[in-house]
């Protein structure tokens, strides 16, 4: 399996500020995904980030609000911009990895609280 780490693990931020979340994988992976899990809810895909191309955003998510970088095959960042309390969520990085198609593993998540 792929080992995924995220930084920070949690943060408390003020309204109007931005936070960048880092995702590091111990293996090279082509596809990386960013999910949001609002309190008590299921996971919702924000965007798919492939190295060497622009991230693909799901309906309801835009690049200005959630810019993503994918500089290499083991690293990605998600920025939550101009935060409001509605952005309080767990943000999870996920990668597709393995000899079999669609083995998907998740990072431990970043728990964000916006005051």
């Amino acid at each position, binding site marked *: *399996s792929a080992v995924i780490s995220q930084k920070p693990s949690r943060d408390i931020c003020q309204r109007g500020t931005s936070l960048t979340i880092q995702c590091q994988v111990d293996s090279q992976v082509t596809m990386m*995904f960013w999910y949001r899990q609002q309190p008590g809810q299921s*996971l919702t895909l924000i965007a798919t980030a492939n190295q060497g191309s622009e991230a693909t955003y799901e309906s309801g998510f835009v690049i200005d609000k959630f810019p993503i970088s994918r500089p290499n095959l083991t690293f990605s960042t998600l920025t939550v911009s101009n935060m409001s309390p509605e952005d309080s969520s767990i943000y*999870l990085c996920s990668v597709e990895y393995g000899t079999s*198609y*669609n083995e998907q593993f998740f990072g431990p998540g970043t728990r964000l609280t916006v005051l």
Partner: protein
Amino acid sequence: AQKVTQAQTEISVVEKEDVTLDCVYETRDTTYYLFWYKQPPSGELVFLIRRNSFDEQNEISGRYSWNFQKSTSSFNFTITASQVVDSAVYFCALSEAQSDMRFGAGTRLTVKP
């Protein structure tokens, strides 16, 4: 469009009882993948199983078993002799080929001692 339904929002059982978590999915693809994840109170997502659409064999892993039935578009998960440590939110998810993963709403399982 792909869709996953977990009709059971919350389930509560007493330790040692068997419990089945239901998952019904919708897809137009013939090639797809079904998953179950466990999310304990600590928050991390723990991968439990992946099953592709061409493999309808049921799977057993210890106290866990999965029943995949394409005829009813279901991929149900049973925990035998439940334990307190099984208490978590369980998510069923579906991924079509060359596509992202869509999650169900989750079922919160509480196992009481």
